[in-house]
């Protein structure tokens, strides 16, 4: 679950239209207007990750607190949990495995997003909030889950952006010759595969409620089960509005 409580604000007098903000945005919320040569934010797509602010070469973007928090979450109970489980395990994740450490999101949430129509990492991020923190560590699980669902990855913006280039190797793809060559240097390839397979095979249970986090402390505010995205006043009481 992602609590979105900040939003970028552009100082147009400093913007040089360099497109770096749109190149680093995980949800494609920024674009540059061809006529004005100024950056433009599609605010509903923005989940407050700060990449644009951090890489803007002219310091034209600042993050400010939102007046109302937004919550992003795709509830795995929206789909048959057996399908969620199957997709996660095919991608070699346990459904309850945490795959985004900034949002404490689990693999099951990515699966639910894919099974309810998301086709790109950017679409999944915009709906779940995954990849809205550091924006880097969860990029491979996104691609592995899409690949397991049979959806090929095409880099965003026709390859002109820098969002995610592609999947990189997993432990299961390390050639035997490589494992053998470095066996005495402390790398534990096969033992780590055994560990990960133990995790993947562990029993899973669907969430009992709309709680996405590590502990029962981290819960969504009460909301209708079908709610995907809603705005809450002061971060506590929801006023539902299905994400478009």
């Amino acid at each position: 679950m992602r609590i979105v409580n900040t939003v970028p604000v552009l100082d147009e007098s400093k913007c040089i239209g360099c497109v770096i903000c749109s190149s680093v945005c995980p949800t494609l919320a920024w674009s540059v207007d061809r006529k004005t040569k100024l950056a433009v934010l599609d605010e509903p797509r923005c989940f407050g990750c700060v990449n644009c602010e951090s890489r803007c070469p002219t310091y034209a973007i600042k993050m400010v607190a939102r007046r109302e928090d937004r919550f992003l979450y795709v509830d795995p109970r929206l789909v048959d949990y057996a399908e969620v489980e199957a997709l996660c395990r095919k991608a070699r994740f346990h459904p309850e495995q945490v795959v985004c450490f900034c949002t404490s999101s689990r693999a099951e949430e990515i699966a639910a997003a894919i099974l309810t129509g998301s086709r790109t990492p950017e679409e999944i991020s915009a709906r779940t909030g995954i990849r809205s923190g550091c924006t880097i560590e969860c990029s491979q699980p996104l691609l592995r889950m899409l690949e397991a669902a049979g959806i090929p990855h095409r880099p965003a913006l026709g390859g002109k952006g820098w969002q995610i280039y592609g999947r990189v190797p997993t432990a299961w793809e390390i050639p035997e010759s490589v494992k053998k060559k470095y066996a005495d240097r402390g790398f534990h390839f096969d033992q780590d595969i055994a560990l990960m397979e133990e995790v993947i095979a562990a029993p899973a249970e669907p969430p009992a409620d709309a709680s996405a986090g590590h502990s029962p402390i981290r819960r969504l505010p009460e909301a209708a089960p079908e709610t995907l995205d809603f705005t809450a006043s002061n971060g506590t009481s929801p006023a539902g509005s299905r994400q478009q």
Partner: protein
Amino acid sequence: MKRAPIPPREPRVSSYSVDPALIRKRGAQLDGICSLEIRDLFPDQPEVIYPSSKGIAAVREETLRQMSRVDLSRIKPGDSVNVLGSRHGFTLLGGEPYAEMLRAIRDAVTERTGCRRVNLRMGQGLRYREGEEYIRAFKLDSCFSNAIAIAPIDKGIPIPTEIGTLYGISKAYDADWIIHTHNSDVREIHFHRMVDRAVKPFGMSYARLETRSGYHQNLGPRAANFIARAIFDSDFVQSKYVCSAFLMVAPAGIVAVDCDNDLYALNDRVVVAGMKYYGKVVTILGSIDSCIAMLDFPAPVPYVFAGGLIYGNFLGAGHDLFDIEKPLPSYTFYTEAYYGRGERHLTSRIPGINPALKMTIHNYAMIGYPSEFFAAKVPTVVVGREQADLFRHDPQSTGYMNHALVADDLATAAEFARRVTGTDKLLIFDGAAGGFNVSEPLADYLLKVAPEVSRKVDEELLPRWLRQRGMEASVLAAWRTRKYPQAA
């Protein structure tokens, strides 16, 4: 012997922390705090060149001497060179030793090769403005032809390797040649497990997000660092690589600068020295039966320092972090991933958090790292509403404050922690140079057990750690005597 508290590392002006003026009191200023010098606990710790009476000149002198021993003949006067660095180096002893090593490397390259286009490319963690903050603070932009911070979200470059395509940051490699500069501080033992520790920046600081995610999600906790070796060994990187220069660090300070064309030879010295000198500090901290930790340093939660070790290490200090027969340390992204709903362990191999750690007082730390895990696993009191608010709005840790309490001032937090936990042992992670700031009862305990810890590491643990990595302690001889073979 117990000494007066060591001055803690000063707060830093940064976009990732509260205004230093809001850090009104430091842990070292609390009643009953004393210090222990590392060399009082472990007399066999190596002598340091910094801090010393020679000041920062000692680092420059050592860097120039060691750089004179490496082969720079690949670099021609009209070429360009990227000196690759990592912002971690600036967290050591205030950052000036690392900055001075970088300046001296630049001078050595220019003087010996005639090359004038010597650039600095500063790799970063997860705070993509931090590198430039350090470049400005240490005026490195006036020293190098072009000094910039590089981030894993910047434009990338595919690098074919023997395990498949990985991705580097384009600007890390936009020169004819590269020089790899780092430090031997053990830091994230939980990630690299002292396997190819010196190679890690190729899979992290200089790498794109795909590579870094692959490191933390695709390979496994003890195979992960192979990503770095695969990139370093690639034809692409080898076609640009000239040499490496490391600030050699021990818990008491900077002990040397080590430069070598052969990164793997240097790596062996880094790994052996790390286990030998930091191993005793990890082991003695792991022997504590009960304590409160205090975060009080300008770095993200897991990266605050005490006795040369980071808080992230202390979470697993009771479980022998160097023993790679154990698959998971108490904290690493793989471990965090394997906590299922309701704290359920998805594998029996999760060791759990160091049971001695009863509570953490968060007096001063920075945002910009996924930190919810720490507050979720260890009862945490954050000092100051401004700091709590900063963490609430950190997109990497929006859940941190869901688990933490807030105290208005440090004294209240310390008294609360002592009363609730029932322990008067306090360990302060404040970057005190050359030692620890601790409460007197903890000082007494550490002094009492240090000789036995020292014996155990020397006679039992270190031989096992070395054996697990196919290494010999004798590789340290070159470093300790500083007698390096002349470059061909």
